């Protein structure tokens, strides 16, 4: 009896720290005179920067350049009569985001979830055309609808969501490009009319979708036991990594036609896509190789001992673990790919940056650089931050069963 009592009294609750505002301030901001100095300096600095920026943003800046050219920023010279096709594509994506959100993030009461729903509604308050306003409201509704469907979380819905993400890519491109050269329905919109955020987005997605498998193959090639395959992979990776993206983009514009059979021509956007893909694949290969090296040899041995073939071992055992280990690196690379697409402006494409330069060249808007670049920076940031957020989610949900 006595013994058991002493044993239970030995289990003590952890000490409780009472939270007080003053205590928190003292502990975290004004602990010593150095802390106090750093705190005061930081406050002053942040105030100075914010105040200057806000004064500029609300007093000096003339945002008319953005408002007037918003369509150019978003879709470039894409014909207005066909803009509904892009809206349709975006609606499909919104529905898919809603569906996937319900499947994997669960709660909607997340700050980003609310943001995704509310931002289109807020944008609809701005003085756009009725068509665009209705579409913006529709975006929220479609997203919400997707979320309600996804909430059932059945295996079938999961499967549908995966396949939809695979299919949405060609469908979107098909919608943007069109089907029939001179048809009544879905006439082709040539790629020299694609521009703005639309083009940036397409360059990024094509770059990711094609450079990913190519990069994985190159990484496997570099580790292959076949000398020719290994040599080719090493030469490719090292050559491409030794050349700046901008020169590769130039070469893709001017040299790629040399390698194509006569008669076959690629338009300028496609050439840029090829350049970005080839460039990104080399870096991806090195990242994937890093992931492959992190897999202990015992995993290969266990797989072989079970009778799995080399291919099965790679696809079922090694790659899933290697790729999971490098998700943060991969997403980091995709974010920089997204931003690096702005270099196509230099080879004369009208992506977000290229169209900005074109807008700034109009006589009405000379000297509006600050406004334009601040605006497109904000757009780049919003998308980059979203990719980063999704990556953190992915890491968490895939982290189950980590060693």
């Amino acid at each position: 009896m006595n013994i058991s009592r002493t044993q239970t009294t030995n289990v003590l609750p952890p000490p409780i720290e009472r939270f007080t505002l003053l205590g928190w301030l003292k502990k975290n901001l004004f602990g010593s005179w150095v802390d106090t100095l750093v705190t005061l300096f930081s406050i002053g600095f942040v105030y100075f920067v914010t105040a200057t920026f806000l004064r500029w943003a609300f007093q000096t800046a003339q945002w008319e350049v953005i408002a007037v050219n918003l369509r150019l920023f978003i879709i470039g010279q894409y014909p207005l009569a066909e803009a509904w096709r892009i809206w349709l594509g975006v609606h499909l994506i919104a529905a898919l985001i809603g569906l996937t959100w319900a499947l994997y993030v669960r709660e909607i009461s997340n700050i980003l979830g609310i943001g995704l729903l509310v931002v289109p509604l807020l944008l609809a308050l701005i003085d756009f055309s009725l068509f665009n306003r209705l579409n913006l409201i529709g975006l929220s509704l479609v997203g919400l609808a997707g979320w309600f469907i996804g909430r059932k979380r059945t295996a079938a819905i999961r499967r549908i969501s995966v396949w939809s993400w695979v299919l949405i890519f060609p469908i979107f491109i098909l919608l943007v490009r069109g089907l029939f050269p001179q048809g009544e329905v879905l006439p082709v919109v040539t790629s020299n009319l694609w521009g703005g955020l639309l083009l940036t987005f397409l360059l990024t997605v094509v770059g990711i979708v094609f450079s990913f498998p190519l990069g994985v193959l190159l990484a496997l090639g570099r580790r292959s036991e076949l000398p020719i395959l290994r040599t080719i992979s090493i030469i490719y990776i090292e050559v491409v990594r030794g050349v700046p993206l901008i020169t590769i983009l130039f070469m893709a514009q001017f040299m790629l036609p040399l390698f194509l059979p006569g008669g076959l021509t690629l338009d300028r956007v496609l050439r840029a896509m090829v350049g970005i893909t080839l460039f990104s694949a080399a870096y991806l290969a090195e990242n994937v190789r890093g992931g492959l090296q992190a897999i202990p040899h015992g995993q290969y041995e266990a797989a072989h001992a079970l009778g799995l073939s080399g291919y099965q071992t790679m696809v079922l055992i090694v790659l899933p673990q290697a790729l999971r280990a490098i998700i943060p690196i991969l997403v980091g690379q995709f974010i920089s790919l997204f931003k690096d697409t702005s270099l196509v402006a230099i080879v004369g494409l009208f992506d977000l940056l290229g169209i900005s330069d074109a807008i700034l060249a109009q006589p009405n808007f000379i000297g509006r650089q600050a406004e334009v670049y601040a605006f497109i920076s904000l757009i780049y940031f919003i998308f980059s931050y979203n990719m980063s957020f999704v990556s953190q989610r992915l890491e968490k949900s895939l982290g189950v069963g980590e060693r």
Partner: protein
Amino acid sequence: MTNNQKNGGPIIICRDIHKWYGHFHALRGINMEVNKGEVIVIFGPSGSGKSTFIRTLNRLETHQRGQIIVDGIELTHDVRHIEAIRSETGMVFQQFNLFPHLTVMQNITLAPIYVRKWPKKKAEEIAQQLLERVGIPEQANKYPGQLSGGQQQRVAIARALAMQPKIMLFDEPTSALDPEMIKEVLDVMTELAQSGMTMLVVTHEMGFARAVAKRMYFFDQGQIVESGTPDDIFYHPTEERTKLFLSQILSH
């Protein structure tokens, strides 16, 4: 050879196996024959080649000289032979080597589904029976990282058994385990031995060896120094090196 095996002859035949790592002569002429249903224990100091030897039997290591015949198939560079032998031979490793990204159930059913081409349902039924056999039926949907070392090793045994192998190889299966978990793994292995499985076990668990081994082999410097029944080895060892090694591992 095939005839010999069908007549109930040896299921494993090793003739004069040699293996070098660079200039280091790791295996120096190993001869061994194992009959169906026999339990063989291999022991010896570290670096004696015992692990290397057992790993040549499913070609995780290649031998450079000599002949290995497993279940009537000679191990050569022929990939089909290697894969055939590997699917008939289960292996359990010191470090478990479970696949950390798959659940226990997926670990066990992976090879039956992708190598044996069984339907998923059948593979899962058999996996569940095996989990019950190794005493952890309730862990099927956990990931390896959520299990104790002893549980992981029992999953590894179940994973190897799921291929319904004719031979089981154990490479120091209890060396990475805490003392209180060694017993739960040895119990599973003992039960397996009593069920008539052909087993080659590299281990220093002398209690296990005494209880279930048909024959024991003492390895040192890439050679078989001495072999015999557990009685021979424990009570009448003839070689000085065997006596010395046994006195060292049995003294504490």
